[in-house]
């Protein structure tokens, strides 16, 4: 083996040892996460925890719970924005909402909701389409910090400015400011919207399905998973979805490697929206 290969082997071994320690000590299983992203995030976390190697980090967190609590959000943080991918929200309005109207009540699962931007974007869209009253949105994630932020629904002025622009690009025509209240320092999403969303912790690695739903959104979450974990996640979504329910994944993700993909028809090829059982 060349010395570069040897270094690479050690790198993989020490990363795996770190992940094993995290699992044994804290119960979080990152062993089936895509290693390139994980490695990048962990490498960036090292100096913040005064460590130079994964081995040092492993030794630190095995005994220091506070250090682990500092580390965890750095591994699981998901950078998200309201109405990210305007074309996706336009496609939802045009292609999916007409079908959602036919249900007496709606349950929608946003898996990997992070700080809630997508959940609030969806709630706003449903409100404008007159569907929010009969809807309950579940926003789930493993990052408890992110879930707390999501529940609070508090965003900075800058975030709201960006959100307003994105909302308009996504086809929104109302006064976006009607959806939140501002004070001098930040903005809070209106209580009406917040009341229709339940944010709760759930792991796609270890947990099971908790409700039957008419739609699942899991966008830019599975990019962090390896193929096996992607399969597991898709299996959960399939189990949760009612027949004719909708699945939406990220624009650069795919269901075609999963054996389940044959059970779904394509609603939008470009926006990665699928319908089960047609």
């Amino acid at each position, binding site marked *: 083996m060349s010395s*570069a290969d040897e270094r690479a082997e050690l790198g993989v071994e020490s990363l795996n040892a770190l992940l094993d320690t995290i699992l044994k000590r804290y119960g979080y299983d990152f062993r089936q996460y*895509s290693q390139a992203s994980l490695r990048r995030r962990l490498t960036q976390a090292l100096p913040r925890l005064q460590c130079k190697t994964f081995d040092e980090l492993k030794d630190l967190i095995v005994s220091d719970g506070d250090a682990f609590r500092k580390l965890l959000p750095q591994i699981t943080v998901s950078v998200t924005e309201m109405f990210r991918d305007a074309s996706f929200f336009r496609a939802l309005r045009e292609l999916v909402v007409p079908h959602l109207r036919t249900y007496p009540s709606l349950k929608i699962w946003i898996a990997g909701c992070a700080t809630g931007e997508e959940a609030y974007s969806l709630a706003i869209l449903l409100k404008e389409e007159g569907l929010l009253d009969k809807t309950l949105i579940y926003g789930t994630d493993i990052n408890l910090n992110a879930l707390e932020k999501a529940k609070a629904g508090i965003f900075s002025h800058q975030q709201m400015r960006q959100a307003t622009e994105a909302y308009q690009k996504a086809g929104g025509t109302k006064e976006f400011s009607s959806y939140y209240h501002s004070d001098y320092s930040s903005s809070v999403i209106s209580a009406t919207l917040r009341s229709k969303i339940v944010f709760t912790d759930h792991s796609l690695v270890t947990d099971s399905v908790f409700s039957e739903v008419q739609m699942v959104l899991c966008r830019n979450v599975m*990019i962090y998973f390896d193929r096996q974990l992607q399969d597991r996640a898709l299996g959960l979504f399939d189990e949760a979805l009612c027949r004719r329910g909708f699945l939406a994944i990220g624009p650069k*993700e795919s269901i075609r*490697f999963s054996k389940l993909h044959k059970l779904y028809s394509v609603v939008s090829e470009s926006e990665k929206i699928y319908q089960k059982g047609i």
Partner: protein
Amino acid sequence: MNSVLPEKLKNIGIIVIGASAGGVEALGNILASVSSPRRVPIVVVMHLSPDEKSLLPELFASKTGLLTREVEDKDPIHPGVLYFAPPNYHLLIERGEFFSLNVDEPVNFSRPSIDTFFDSTAEIFGSRALGIILSGANDDGARGLATIAAAGGMGVVMDPAQAAVATMPQRAAEECPGALVLGAEEIRNLLNEF
């Protein structure tokens, strides 16, 4: 070119290209009359607007006659394909030689970041990587090219005098002193070695 090169060339398993302002023109220039089919995949990271769909794969499919693809998560890396990083994601390579994407914070205001992708390429491909920096207004990619060179790969910088915006290749040449500074025609010829 000196006599060390032919050995290194045989070893090249991936060509990675980074560019920003002036990059589309520069890329068109170096891919003009590129031979097809090709042995080695080419992967391009171009700084693009995050809100718009990229037209590059379509544009370069017709310009070059090559098979082009905007990378999707977990895409395998096939020889002979011209890949483009999608806008608003960082591009990475996994052990097992396939692509993965991530939505981490922009690096130096860039997502995709050329540095991030070149780092990942250096980690997985090491001495089998050939990195090329074209035209652009910031220094994204300078450090990444140095990382590829440090891992034993080859670094190439477009001659700043020929680049529409010279900052990027200039900074890359400074940060990676071992990089070859080549004109468009020389880069074209180099690419046709693969």
